[in-house]
């Protein structure tokens, strides 16, 4: 078994708003192996982004607060460091890097791409000369397949296309040797052809350079091609996890089944109707004691209504599901 590069254990993050506590991340555990790409899937607002922001300790405090848990990166618990400590800052960008959803707004509009890359390089290599940093930036742009990298360094972000900007973000993510890249909806804002190019580039980093990748997405289509394992999140908790094949071919949790039924499949019968999940995502500030998916669940039983939230249980071959229906299926 490969080494766990990142292991998150029972992470809890809440936001304290005037309406009450919002448990955005409610006991989430997952791991990423070296050289592996995993996906965390869920609707918007299910806490998948906040989980990653908590790993990086970038949750705005107040109103957000990481309440408990462990984030083991390369064997050290990141939550032992303060959010603005030197140790944490050196992890960000040169240990774990993040790529964000909106390439339009994720880069500073009044600084050139080169200036921003150099800022990052010099932050993690104190004392490096400006021209060395510049050369390193140019190389990073070349690595992510940006033509005329020298000239591009002098461009402002608004002079580039969305796909190009996302490539710049990826260049920034690898330029200081991060082992883990967290990509938060990296392709949502891009058009379809660019989406594939950006995803292929990310996958290349995993396969050729041994990076690890966490893809956060609501798009199951991305998962099938790029991730080896999948975590499905609902209302701040992981409700199902397993290999991509397990999740796609043999979904256990009713929510996962619902997600799969609501996306078109190439091989499926054309007459088959798409079935959307009924109801609305829950309001996180006012969660019931019982299973959060229950109000939308077509299979709910009395047991579900009377019990606490179900815990993740192995249904066989490290395929986990948090549902009373799937519990005890394999003894």
């Amino acid at each position, binding site marked *: 078994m490969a080494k766990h590069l990142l292991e998150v254990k029972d992470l809890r993050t809440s936001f304290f708003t005037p309406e009450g506590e919002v448990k955005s991340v409610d006991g989430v555990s997952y791991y990423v192996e070296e050289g592996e790409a995993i996906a965390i899937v869920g609707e918007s607002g299910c806490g998948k982004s906040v989980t990653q922001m908590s790993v990086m300790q970038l949750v705005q405090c107040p109103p957000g607060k990481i309440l408990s848990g462990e984030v083991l990166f390369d064997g050290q618990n990141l939550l032992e460091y303060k959010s603005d400590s030197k140790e944490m*800052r050196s992890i960000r960008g040169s240990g774990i890097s993040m790529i964000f959803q909106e390439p339009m707004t994720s880069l500073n509009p009044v600084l*050139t791409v080169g200036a921003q890359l150099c800022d990052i390089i010099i*932050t993690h290599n104190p004392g490096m000369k400006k021209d060395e940093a510049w050369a390193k930036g140019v190389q990073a742009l070349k690595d992510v397949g940006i033509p005329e990298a020298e000239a591009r360094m002098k461009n402002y972000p608004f002079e580039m296309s969305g796909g190009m900007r996302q490539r710049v973000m990826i260049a*920034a993510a690898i330029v200081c040797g991060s082992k883990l890249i967290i990509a938060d909806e990296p392709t949502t804002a891009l058009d379809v052809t660019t989406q594939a190019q950006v995803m292929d580039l990310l996958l290349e980093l995993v396969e050729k350079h041994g990076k690890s990748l966490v893809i956060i997405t609501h798009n199951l289509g991305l998962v099938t091609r790029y991730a080896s394992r999948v975590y499905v999140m609902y209302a701040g908790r992981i409700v199902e996890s397993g290999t991509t094949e397990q999740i796609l071919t043999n979904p256990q949790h009713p929510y996962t089944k619902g997600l799969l039924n609501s996306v078109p499949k190439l091989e499926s019968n054309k007459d088959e109707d798409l079935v959307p999940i009924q109801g609305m995502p829950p309001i996180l500030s006012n969660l019931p004691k019982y299973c959060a998916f229950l109000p939308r669940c077509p299979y709910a039983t009395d047991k579900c209504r009377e019990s606490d939230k179900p815990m993740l249980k192995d249904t066989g071959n490290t395929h986990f599901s948090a549902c009373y229906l799937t519990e005890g299926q394999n003894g």
Partner: protein
Amino acid sequence: MTGYIVKKVLTAIGLVILISLFTFLLMQLLPGDPARIALGDGASEERIQEYRDSYGLNDPVLVQYWRWITNIIFHGDFGKSVLNSRDVTSYIHTRLPNSISIGLPGLIFGVLVGLFVGIVSAVKRGGWLDQVLTVLVNLFLATPRFLTAIFGVIILALNLHLIPLQGYTAPWDDFGDYVSKAFWPVVVNAIYTVAILARQTRSNMLEVISQDYVRTARAYGLSERKIIFRYALKNALIPVITIIGLQMQNIVAGAVIIENVFNIPGIGQMLLNGIMQRDYFIVQACVLVISVMTVFCNLMVDIAYGFIDPRVRRSMR
């Protein structure tokens, strides 16, 4: 870039022409006949007609305007005071430097302190210092200048005897005397600018800090210091430049009030006296000078924008 500047300059010139025309027409609406004001109530109808003819007051309004504006442009001649036949150009010439000696330090002081207060508030957002500063800013925004001036006089001059009650000495005559007399007027003039800039800078900084690219900078390990000074400050200050440009208006409005409270022989006092005495040429000249200065400041701001904001700079190519 040149095209952009030329366009802005032409717009500004057009605006100045419109302002001069507007001011001139506005003056025609002022009640009272200049001739009667000049000659006094006892003057005979014949003398008045004679006066009107000799000053061209019977000509059509646009002809009068043309004469006025061409005299200004080609001879630098703003006409003569109706009341005492004094040359308005030389009058402005003696008065304007006094106003500038109060207004310019006020503007500089106000901008610097305002930016500083705004940045401190934003960096310490939510802390006690921020809360105290915010209360002070709101208080000063709600205090008319004449009250700031008078309250200061009550405390600083009458009770603590730190500053003279009123009066003015030009800095080039006696600098020490200027400093002691101009101190409070300059501060009063600056306070409003400080409050406006502090509020704007603070809210811009907070807005920028919540932007995605600041989150990116944090996610790549940049220190909070670097984020504030390299990322937030530059982006937050670009819109503040506009506000700085608008402060010219505040300084002028301040000049009218402050020069009257402290009895400073500047252009604001000249304007107020002109209005009270219906001295057309003086009012016209003052309004024109003041407006041109305002337009000039806004023009400078527009051009500065072009240099500072890469989005504007590149789009102008």
